[in-house]
């Protein structure tokens, strides 16, 4: 490759990188605009919901709306403690184990 080709490649890489960041910005703006168009639907549902907590909270605490039920719930379980299960955790719940357990209980029948 000639010197002029290498220089052009250097400029292309720097300008191209800025362009990639610009494209991400444009895509983000388009997606945000599209989501803004859905605000009416969110408002309609939000008016009936107890709070706008996202439906992400784990079942372990039985707190689907932690922000209004236990304002410190998302943060800790004691003073200066890290939350070991901040509305979930690294691992998914053992759903298959629960299903199997339910099946075993069903097969045993009522006690």
């Amino acid at each position, binding site marked *: 490759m000639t010197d002029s080709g290498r220089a052009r490649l*250097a400029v292309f890489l720097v300008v191209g990188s800025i362009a990639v960041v610009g494209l991400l910005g444009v895509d983000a703006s388009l997606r945000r605009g599209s989501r803004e168009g859905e605000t009416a*639907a969110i408002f309609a549902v939000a008016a009936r919901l107890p709070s*706008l907590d996202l439906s992400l909270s784990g079942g372990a605490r039985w707190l689907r709306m932690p*922000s*209004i039920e236990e304002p410190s719930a998302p943060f800790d379980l004691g003073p200066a403690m890290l939350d070991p299960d901040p509305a979930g955790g690294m691992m998914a*719940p053992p759903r298959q184990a629960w299903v199997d357990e339910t099946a075993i209980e069903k097969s045993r029948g009522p006690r």
Partner: protein
Amino acid sequence: MTLRVSSEVLRLRSLAAYAMGGLGRRRAKTFALGGALALAVALVGAVLFLTDALRAESERGRSAMPDLTVERLVAGRPSTISRADADKIRDLSSVRAVTPRAWGYLFLAAIQGNLTVIGVPPGAPALGAGEGSLVAGRDLVPGAHEMIAGRGLASLLGLDIGDELGLPSVHADAPPLKLVGTFASRVDLFTSDVVFCDESDARSLLGLGSAEATDLAVSVINPNESHVLANKIALALPGSRIIEKDVLGRIYALTYGRRAGVFLAAAIPALLALLVLGWDRVSALGPEEKREVAVLKAVGWSTADVLSAKLLESVIVAFVASALGLAIAYAWVFPLGAPGLRPTLAGWSVLYPNAPLTPAIDFAQLLSLALGIVAPFVGLSIVPAWRAATTDPMQAMRG
């Protein structure tokens, strides 16, 4: 003047060509350093993108929430509140409306998860296809024992519109509910585990008496007075807890900010290791590189020329790696839905919403993030570049 400009352009072009050539000659080192930087940017960027998207989603409909939520505490835990307390609040000045709400949880053994059952009071604004909150069916007809459910729940239970479901209840006479509508995916983040039904059905399912409510939603004529009104309610209803809408906003910001902070703090050792590795790689000039610089200086390159060429190498690597890292982070979080990362930051639930996230970050923030990576990386390479530029050519050639 024109001659000086064109000679400067020629000089820059030659330096850029030399820098590209240098990067090509040390291909393995360039890819290792650039790749590691891109991966670090991707990890940090993805955490920031995801956190911002979740926070923005929580904030999106906040203006539709009541200004104050009033609960009753018994033994420090939320309990049901008397509907008669609503009248005491209505008497206070600057109160626009007080709505007793009936909602709660039901554990559904079939899916080993909790449903959030929400009673819709008579006269609530209708849901419909107009605003797009329902993907199928219609709104509830009061008194008809109907329900609207999230898509996650309907799909887990295999329910179709028109099917009836008997939910477990403490009251044996709780009626089965007929599914008349399912929520659209655009509201899935808020409704995947939600069942809307008539208020009387919700009371029956949840075991709430007709004189009780889960909490009271208070709207205020002038929202600026909500804090003052909260104090008045606390005096009028001893043992109550009042949650202000502004506090909820702060809770959302803190929750996701803190989770991202903990995650990023855990990643700091890895990022520091990368920087140390980068510093070591960039500062340790190999014999080939030393000879190369010595030859350049011997043929007349100034210290400034060598310094500029070395800095240009760092600039090119930093720009490309940052853009690549941000692109990977963006694709990971938004088009792909952040596999592996979303459960860590957003948690798990049995009825997990699968709705895509919306980017909250804009071009200016993306650019600042990119420059926040490029500037320290280039800054780190100044000392090694200076060391290379000031090498004595004779000494370097002797080895």
